[in-house]
Each structure stands twice: as structure tokens, then as C-alpha cells.
């Protein structure tokens, strides 16, 4: 792509972000959402967060599900869930999870490859 085309892409990405993020803030008070849909939407943030992280925890570089001890991300993720459930400290949990992940990654010959 030429320099100009890349800048057009960047501006179009900014427009896509503004439309989705701010669009409803601007016109939302003119739209009524049925109560049933509103009730359902309460579950949207947690489902979206789960959908964002699940592929990172479960898929390897080739897009195959790795559901075993060779998956460093999954093991480190489970360890962080346990740590957070116990301590309720987010920063601690991130550090523990990264230490787990790095330690597992450095163990030779055990892990699937992630590229």
C-alpha cells in the first residue's frame, strides 16, 4: 500500500471506532430499548470479555485448540484465576500470571509453539 492509502485506512479505522463507540451516546436518548433486551444486555460485557480472551488462552499459533498441560497460556490463566479468587489483587495476579507463563515458556521441550 502507498503512504496515502495507509493514511486513508487509518482514518477509516478511526471513523469505524467513532461510529461504534460514540454513535449510540449521540442518538441513544432518541431510541427506546425494550426492557427484555436491556436485561439481556446486562450479560454483554462479561460475555464480550470472555470472548476476547478465550482464543488467546486456548488456541495456539496455528489456530488449534490446546487443552492440555503443554499450553502455557491456559495454565498461567488458570493459575491467575485461582490467585485472583484467593487474593483479589489485580496487579499481583498479572505479575503471578506472567511469571507462570514465562517459567512455563522457558521449560524446554514441553510446550506447543506459538508464533
Amino acid at each position: 500500500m502507498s503512504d496515502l492509502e495507509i493514511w486513508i485506512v487509518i482514518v477509516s479505522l478511526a471513523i469505524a471506532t467513532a461510529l461504534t463507540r460514540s454513535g449510540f451516546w449521540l442518538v441513544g436518548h432518541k431510541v427506546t430499548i425494550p426492557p427484555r433486551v436491556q436485561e439481556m444486555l446486562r450479560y454483554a460485557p462479561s460475555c464480550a470479555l470472555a470472548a476476547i480472551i478465550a482464543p488467546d488462552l486456548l488456541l495456539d499459533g496455528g489456530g488449534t485448540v490446546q487443552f492440555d498441560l503443554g499450553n502455557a497460556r491456559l495454565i498461567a490463566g488458570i493459575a491467575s484465576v485461582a490467585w485472583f479468587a484467593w487474593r483479589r489483587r489485580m496487579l499481583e495476579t498479572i505479575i503471578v500470571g506472567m511469571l507462570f507463563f514465562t517459567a512455563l515458556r522457558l521449560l524446554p521441550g514441553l510446550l506447543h509453539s506459538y508464533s
Partner: protein
Amino acid sequence: MSDQDFATHDPAAWRDGFRTGLPTLFGIGAWGVVVGVAMIKSGLSIPQALGMTLLVFAGSAQLAALPLIAANAPIWVIFVTALVINLRFVIFSVLLAPHFASLPWHKRLGLGFVSGDISVALYLQRYPDPEPAPGKVSFLKGLLYPNCAAWQIGSIIGIFLGNAVPTEWGLGFAGTLAIVCILVPMVASMPALCGVLVAAAVSVLAADLPYKLGLLAAVVVGMVTAMVVEETGDRRRAKRKENGEANHV
């Protein structure tokens, strides 16, 4: 309450928002570094990468656009991909917008544009109801502005580090861990837990769908699951109550 009270700067609420979001800033910053590095590694120049992080401010959309740019995909395809990845923000803004409907439009535009996944989740945990309350706007700003700053600082560091950070360090994983911490308290009820597990499964199974449609499918199927579980539970409780009363008679 007047709109004045609602929007007046409340330093205590701002600090409260900042403290609530503080532990996530490390993960957000690390995530920013990864996206910054990824932009440079995919061949963007430093001004292009800086422009992208400052104008777009949507990590997952940026990451998805990079291979498409490298592959010379048509611009409309990249635009549609970004729209679909960001569709979850439409759902978030449906939840958040009623809280701030009385603010002037430019403030709504600005606050909406910087509202990220984690900030929205943390905000809704504190204020589930849309009724105006003092300090709400300041609390939201205390979440959003530091979150945005952490992201931008991380991205800019990533852009200038460029190729110096080895990919295998897996710095982006810190962002995933930050989300894990927010998610755990959110699944305290059976419907929420079921919804989250189903959403996770769908997102993995549908990961290959184009334009990241799997993410959207996961959110929709997860939401519906949670709702069905909730209603089944309600009905069972109602039935048990009915039977209990019948036994007393």
C-alpha cells in the same frame, strides 16, 4: 438533582475511579506496547504507527487491520472488519449512554470515543443503574482518561522499541490477565457463569470466521444463554414457592 451537580467535577469520585482502574493500567500499558511493536513489525512507518495509535485507539481493531494492510486488502474490507470488531462497543454504549444522556453532545462524543472494554465493565460494576448520581461523570473520567493515557504511552513505547522486544516474551498476555481479573467477580451468578463459558466456547470454535464475526457471535450466544438460565432459574424458584405454599395448606 440538576444536571449541574451531575456533571460538576468531583475530585474524590475522580480519584475513586482512578483507584478502581489503577491495577488494570499495567496490563493495558503492556497490551499497548505489544500493539505498538506489532504496527512497526508489520511495516508501518513511525509517523503512520503514531497516527494509528492516536487516532484509532482500538487495540483489537488495529491488530486485525495490520495483516490486512500487509496483504493489500481493499480499504472497505478493512473498514468492515474494524466495524465488526468494534460492534461490542455498540452494546456497551447502549448500556452506558443512558447514564450520560444529559451531557452536551461533544462531551458524549468524547467520553464515548475513549471508553474501552475494561473501563466499561468496571464502571457498570460500580453503577449498574442509569439514574444520575453525583460524581458519576468524574468517576467515569477517572477510569477512562488514565486508561487511555496508559494505552497511548504503552503504544508509543512499543512503536519506538520496534523490533527490540522479542515476540516470544508474550507481553500481550498481560492484557488477557487483566481481563481475567475483571471477569472473575462478574461471574458470581449461575446465569453469568453459563453465559461466559458459552461465549468463551463459541469464540474459540468460531475464531476462523472472517471479520472477527466469531467475537460477535460469541457475545450474542453467551447473552442468550445467560438469559435462558436466568429465566429457567426464576421459573424453578417460583414453582418451588408454589409447592411450598401448597404443602402448608
